[in-house]
């Protein structure tokens, strides 16, 4: 089976995977892309969030068969220390993570939100970020999303902003 992951075509041995296997386990246990996390297995917590064709998707309940010909992006390709995604910069600025386990999923959910909504309201953030964080980093995540959004739309002309 072939998958497009982080811009590369990855071939998975048929013996290693199964069309019914959730994407999460192919990423973690077959490809060793362990940045995407297992939290609940029932799409309730969002720790396993990745992008599929630009949409945030919970990989723990997404079978490989459903993503075979689609563009998959994981936390490993969101940005690096040298070239961070604006959200990652904001995450550091606001010192968001505590234990850090949910943060890959949080960042991927937030990145998908900003990609289609460069100026999310509090209600937009509430609706898009339904991931669970047991350390309680929500207020900082909200603030970091807002500051990343601000850096992502510096070119908005003032007149347009007023209109």
């Amino acid at each position, binding site marked *: 089976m072939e998958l497009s992951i982080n811009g590369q075509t990855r071939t998975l041995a048929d013996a290693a995977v199964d069309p019914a296997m959730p994407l999460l386990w192919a990423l973690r*246990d077959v490809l060793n892309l*362990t940045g995407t996390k297992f939290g609940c297995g*029932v799409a309730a917590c969002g720790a396993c969030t990745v992008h599929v064709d630009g949409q945030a998707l919970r990989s723990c309940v997404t079978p490989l068969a459903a993503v075979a010909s689609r563009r998959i992006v994981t*936390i490993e390709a969101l940005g690096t220390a040298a070239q961070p995604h604006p959200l990652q910069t904001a995450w550091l600025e606001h010192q968001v993570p505590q234990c850090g*386990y949910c943060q890959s999923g949080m960042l991927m959910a937030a990145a998908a939100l900003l990609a289609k909504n460069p100026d999310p309201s509090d209600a937009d953030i509430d609706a898009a970020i339904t991931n669970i964080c*047991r*350390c*309680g980093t929500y*207020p900082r995540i*909200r603030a970091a999303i807002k500051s990343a959004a601000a850096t992502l739309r510096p070119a908005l002309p003032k007149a347009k902003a007023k209109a």
Partner: protein
Amino acid sequence: MKRRTMILSGLGAVAALVVGWGVLPPRGRLGGPGTQPLVAGEVGLNGWIKIGADGGVILAMNRSEMGQGVHTALAMLVAEELDISLAKVRLEQAGADKIYGNVAMFVGSLPFHPSDAEPGRETRTVRTGQWIVAKLARELGISATGGSSTIADAWDVLRLAAATARAQLLGAASLEWKLPLAELSVKNGVISHASGPQGHYGLFAKAAAATPPGDVSLKAAKDWTLVGTPAPRIDLQAKIDGTAPFGLDVRLPNQLYAVARHCPMLGGGAGAVNAEAAMKLPGVERVVRLGSFAGSTGAVVVVGRSTWHAQQGAQALQIEWRAPPAGVLASATIVDALDRSAREAAAAQGGLAFHSVGDVAAASKGAARRVEQLYRAPYLAHATMEPINCTARVADGRVEVWVPTQMPGSARAVAARAAGVSEDAVTVHVTYLGGGFGRRLDVDVVGQAVRVAVETGGRPVQLVWPREEDIGHDFYRPAGVALLQASLDAQGMPIGLAITSAGDAVTPRWMERALPALAGPIDMPDKTAAEGLIDLPYGIANQRMAHVATHSGVPVGFWRSVGHSHNAFFAEAFIDELAFEAKQDPVAFRLALLKDAPRHVAVLQLAADKAGWGGPLPAGVARGVALHESFNSIVAQVVELSLQGGRPRVLRVVCAADVGTVVNPGIVAQQMEGAVIFGLSAALYGRIDIEGSVVRQSNFPDYPVVKMAESPAIIETHLVPSTRAPGGVGEPGTPPIAPAVANAMFVLTGQRVRSLPLLA
């Protein structure tokens, strides 16, 4: 003889027999240059500090990072005393030496009233008790991350270790350059003299190891440049790019994956297992039956090529489960029994009276009015984000485990027992913890994983519990009940307060599992279920705070803030009731009762001021307040709350705290925010129900927690400046939130909810 004194004499006799009497200087915990293993180019100066060839500092890290920021905070203490940037301090897991054990956590478990334990003014009983326990803890050297004790435990030792290393390095430079010590200075790990010579620590390390430190003094607080600042955490880059290694991220050559399926009945086990269908599935390698390890329920484990293959196999198993030999557990029945125990003990002045002043019976007789209420709290699960897991390899008589644990020594011991080897043959690698909250003070999964790895022919195996296994087989925060009885004078002010609580003792159950060698045949008095009721700051003339310790059979464990987690709700919601009875403002009422508690006054006043207590609010919004001391820190919270469709929505939390000396105010604020949200999940939703020994909840859909939409948008933290030794930070923010929310709900609804969760 008072019961407390008797207990202490017993402990003292044991301590004297075991370890002899003597003094306990922090210097005794510095260790030697060879305490930690050295790699080429490194020089050990003591058990905590090594110097690298590049002049960097390598710190032996004896505490687990589970989100609470201790890796950063401990590195800050060392960087400060060594005058080196935080970026040049590298962490290395500390070994098993006893110097790395936790003394402060065990001293903190003593059942003393804070007013008897005020530093410098301790009663003789307190001083003796603290000394004995410190001595025992030092001798035992149990490494543990818990009890909000990390900074308190490290405060003297780690700073001294770093300051001693600095003195040795400077001494070596002085000798080599033949320049007076007093004329040398250090900037970011580079020693220099005004006349020109300079060099980084690495150049002097070897000579420093042979140079006596002379008189070592710690930096004065006024000279700190790093401690006290909100320095960025050192672990965050790895936590935003997916590279931070948690337990479940361990990947070894030839690794197998395993999934556990426990007997649904707590304490039960597997009878007949039909594995035929499971073994026919592709990718399933083997099936292993597990007995009980360090308190675990019996289970069957399927080993496979991936976690998913193993999970498919686990679901295909046909298992006849065996009920536990002890009776059937039902939480409703247990809580009813706790109600009765509390009432009976209250009527008979029974239970263990941890705190007693004046005469509550006489106060009750002379009271103008009496108020009595029973409060209840349910069992709770921890639900750490990272599911319970451990990776183990058993090969050539050696055992290696990789585990997110708060108890590396216990992990080592249970691994050795499971593999039938000596502890010397076991290496424990502590990974990042995806949340701990006390759950990872238990090491059950380590024994399980090692037992499975014994079967896999030397191949490493990663055992994980699916979320349903975690919620269904936790060591739960015990259910608790308290009967609170106040005697009021004609003005409505309390002249007597009797609190009789009942609930399972946690410490003895945990010791049996995690430290079996220390577990005794009888339960020592355990304050963990009673803390938060027996140590209230209010100046009420007659008080009796007693607790009935029970043993229900439900597996119970430490849950962030332990007894305080529910007892603060009981105490502070009841105090709010008394304020209402006295027709007084809740803040003014508390202040009136806090005449002998100036630190509490300062904290409460700060929270009230910053929250604008008494000021106008939008229609439909109310404030609630709570004040609570735990882990040597005092926290007050004021919430602003509205009801949306009948459901409480916390809009803003103002948190004021006196946590003693602050190492990193940024991390303190993070912890207060996190503790509030953790406590809010429990206050609003948290409940574990047990019927027929089976836990009814299984995963986040039926064990809900607060998410972004229900999280307060604003949580402010304001710190009272303090020069006291550091108190706890990770837990003290959790207890006040439930009563603060409940008290605000009362303002809006006129109804008191006296049982958690508030949304039953």
